[in-house]
């Protein structure tokens, strides 16, 4: 048995101490889940192990022999491979699947490598991860789930002892995730040690043999999975603050229709949707990845403008760009936070006031003092954890960045708020804040459209749930009749009589 052991690992970036002495051990043939809120240090720890960062202190040993890991090459030599969260950064999309899978032969292999042999090797590796794709196909044609498996196939092309997976199911549908789990179990049988980073408790309880929880750079829980409960894990992630899932029993009083669309064509999917939101209503839009949720949300906001008009409080408006949407009273929190939602190189104040900058402008000049005072009021109200309001968003954790991405729309005081996967990649604590914020919006007579693939969240607080499948709205459920099974039934195309993947 191979034992990889990290002892009192320390790491800091400038002023910020990320790891304050972390012990972590993984044995071959075990699935060791690593959990923690955003900013707890999970990714940093794994980047140290995979040679991406150099540690400030601590020891890494392999079978009690000390290892020097300063570069990714060192980690690879020790048999440690990492499957990163953003799979596109680790693969070359312009090459074929075969070339990507056999990437290591380019580095260490012979100078000449026949295509015949390459395809054969690639095919074998793809079989091992259960992919039935043509190795000659360009990688760019693969789906996200396929790319992930290609990356795993690439990792196991060498004799590896340990593999690190960073939130591999973040963008996968349930079925794709199940397939991934079977691949991982197969690897486990072949005596590979798996380090599994995830935010999703159910899959951790299902898959892992051991759990380590990090909080603020310390280890707060380290146990056999069978010996601990979900509540225990959540408590270790959040500290002693109690976790209360929002379960609002009482029905909200709903007002008139705020936003309504009929046969509204969505350019991203080529389909049409009809939906409406009333005052004080939270409408959840469920759907698996690829169901067309993001496309619909973007079309409603004019990010990818539709040729059809919407009805806002009964008034017909054509939303041809985001500016029109904003002046009509719509706000949009996009899925890709860092790419679309916030400006990472700008500070909290500048991010929050961006949509309403005109309010803080006199004769073209920005009234910085007023801008700052107003922004700081919102920072407090949103619970954005930042030392000062002039801190760049890059230095904040994902959850706090998300709060800024949402917060800027609170300043606009619109009528309808569209959220696209607002809890993606943020920790449980920040999730609570986001839910609370959305609930407050509804209490203040705003309409909320909540697009997500997290069914539990929808069941927790939506008044009505629409389920999307293949770009269309496949079903509508009220709060009282909605269950996970019913939602999944529609989301997987079950209403067609056949289940399509």
């Amino acid at each position, binding site marked *: 048995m191979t034992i990889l052991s990290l002892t009192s690992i320390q790491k800091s970036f400038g002023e910020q101490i990320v790891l304050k002495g972390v012990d972590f051990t993984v044995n071959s043939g075990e699935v060791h889940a690593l959990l923690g809120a955003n900013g707890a240090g999970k990714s940093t720890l794994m980047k140290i192990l995979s040679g991406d960062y150099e540690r400030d202190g601590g020891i890494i040993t392999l079978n009690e022999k000390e290892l020097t890991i300063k570069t990714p090459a060192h980690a690879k030599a020790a048999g440690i491979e990492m499957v990163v969260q953003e799979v596109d950064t680790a693969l070359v999309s312009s090459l074929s699947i075969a070339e990507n899978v056999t990437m290591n032969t380019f580095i260490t292999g012979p100078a000449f490598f026949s295509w015949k042999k390459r395809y054969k090797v690639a095919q074998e590796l793809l079989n091992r991860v259960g992919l039935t794709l043509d190795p000659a196909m360009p990688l760019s044609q693969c789906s996200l789930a396929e790319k992930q498996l290609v990356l795993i196939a690439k990792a196991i092309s060498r004799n590896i002892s340990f593999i690190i997976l960073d939130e591999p199911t973040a963008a996968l549908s349930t079925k794709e995730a199940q397939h991934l789990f079977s691949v991982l179990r197969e690897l486990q049988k072949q005596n590979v040690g798996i380090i599994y980073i995830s935010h999703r408790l159910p899959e951790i309880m299902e898959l892992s043999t051991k759990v380590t929880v990090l909080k603020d750079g310390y*280890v707060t829980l380290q146990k056999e999975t069978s010996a601990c409960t979900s509540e225990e894990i959540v408590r270790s992630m959040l500290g002693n603050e109690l976790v209360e899932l929002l379960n609002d029993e009482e029905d909200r009083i709903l007002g008139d229709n705020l936003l309504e669309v009929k046969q509204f064509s969505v350019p991203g999917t080529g389909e049409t949707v009809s939906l409406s939101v009333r005052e004080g209503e939270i409408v959840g839009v469920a759907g698996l990845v690829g169901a067309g949720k993001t496309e619909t949300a973007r079309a409603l906001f004019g990010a990818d403008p539709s040729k059809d008009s919407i009805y806002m409080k009964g008034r017909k408006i054509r939303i041809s760009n985001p500016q029109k*949407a904003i002046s009509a009273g719509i706000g*949009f929190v996009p899925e890709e936070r860092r*790419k*679309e939602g916030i*400006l990472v190189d700008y500070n909290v104040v500048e991010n929050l006031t961006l949509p309403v*900058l005109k309010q803080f402008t006199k004769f*073209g*000049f920005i009234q910085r003092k007023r801008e700052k005072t107003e922004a700081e009021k919102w920072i407090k109200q949103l619970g954005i954890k930042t030392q000062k309001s002039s801190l760049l968003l890059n230095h904040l954790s994902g959850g706090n960045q998300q709060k800024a991405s949402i917060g800027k729309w609170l300043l606009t005081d619109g009528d309808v708020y569209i959220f696209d996967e607002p809890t993606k990649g943020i920790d449980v604590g920040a999730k609570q804040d986001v839910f609370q914020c959305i609930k407050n919006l509804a209490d203040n007579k705003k309409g909320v459209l909540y697009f997500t693939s997290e069914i539990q969240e929808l069941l927790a607080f939506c008044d009505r749930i629409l389920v999307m499948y293949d770009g269309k709205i496949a079903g509508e459920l009220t709060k009282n009749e909605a269950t996970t099974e019913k939602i999944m039934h529609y989301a997987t195309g079950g209403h067609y009589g056949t289940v399509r993947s």
Partner: protein
Amino acid sequence: MAQYVHKEHVENDINTTKLSLQEKIFPFLYRYGTLLVILLTVIGFSLANDKFLSYQNFTDILRSVSIITLLAIGVTISLIVGGFDLSVGSTASLATVTSAAALVLYRQETIIAILIPIAIGLLVGLLNSFFVVKVRLPDLLATLAVMYIINGLHLTFTKGFSIYNNMPLSEGGTAPGVFLPSFLFIGQGEIWSVPVPVIIMLIAVIVVHVILQQTRFGRLLYITGGNEEAARLSGVPVQRYKMYAYLLSAFFATLAGILLAARIGTGQVSAGAPLLMDGVAAAFIGFSVFGAGKPNVIGTFVGAVLIGILLNGLTMLNVPYYAQDIVKGSILIGALAFMYYEKKK
């Protein structure tokens, strides 16, 4: 096996190691490195040549950098929106030639010789923004193509000859007009013994700085360059702001071209071409000033001054002009290396 590891002493260890000399010096150099280099260069040149540190030489340096600074302001604005305007050099050449042509070939007044190049320059800016915003070509390629087109246009117009007083015309006789004294005053005059180009440059630097830092217009230019998609989804008309940036870029290039014509008193063809790279260098050196890490006008000005001081000093020390580019390149590398080193951390 559950552990609650709270090693407070670890924190202290990290705090003490942080105060190492290296950790303290790098941030200082990152912020003030460029200014330090200027200071050291001035001291060095003053020791080597006693004529270096005089009011006359000081104004000479500023005068020599005024044209580059104006051009570099244009480059800076294009960089702010995340673009890159390579056509500023040829736009300056075009402005030089058109203002000279207006004066010498068409006997126009000074004001016309200023307004016509500005109007034509803005057309070039529109052309750039058309390719970048509407056709959606990458900035570098679009402005490279426009650079060639403008260069070819102004050479075709002059048939490759420069325009000067009393020049012979192909249809016989000499040119009817001359460079008017009021026009030459822009490039050669002095007000209270400060050269006019220097005054124009300083006004431009201050006005653009205030606009960029204090106004909504400036903020939105920066935001557009910071993350175009996030800006668009926050309701910023990013395409319009990109167009403004290219118009401003062309405007400042034109201003530089007019100043150049007034300075040398001829409509020299291709005069703007060598200015392009100096302008780009000044803008990029500007990134490093005060550790800004992004394009900014004060930095650009400092960058231009640094280049000016070096060229002036090296000339005084009889370093041949062809060797001076080595120094320019080294300074640029030094400034960029510091910036990217700090960013990587």
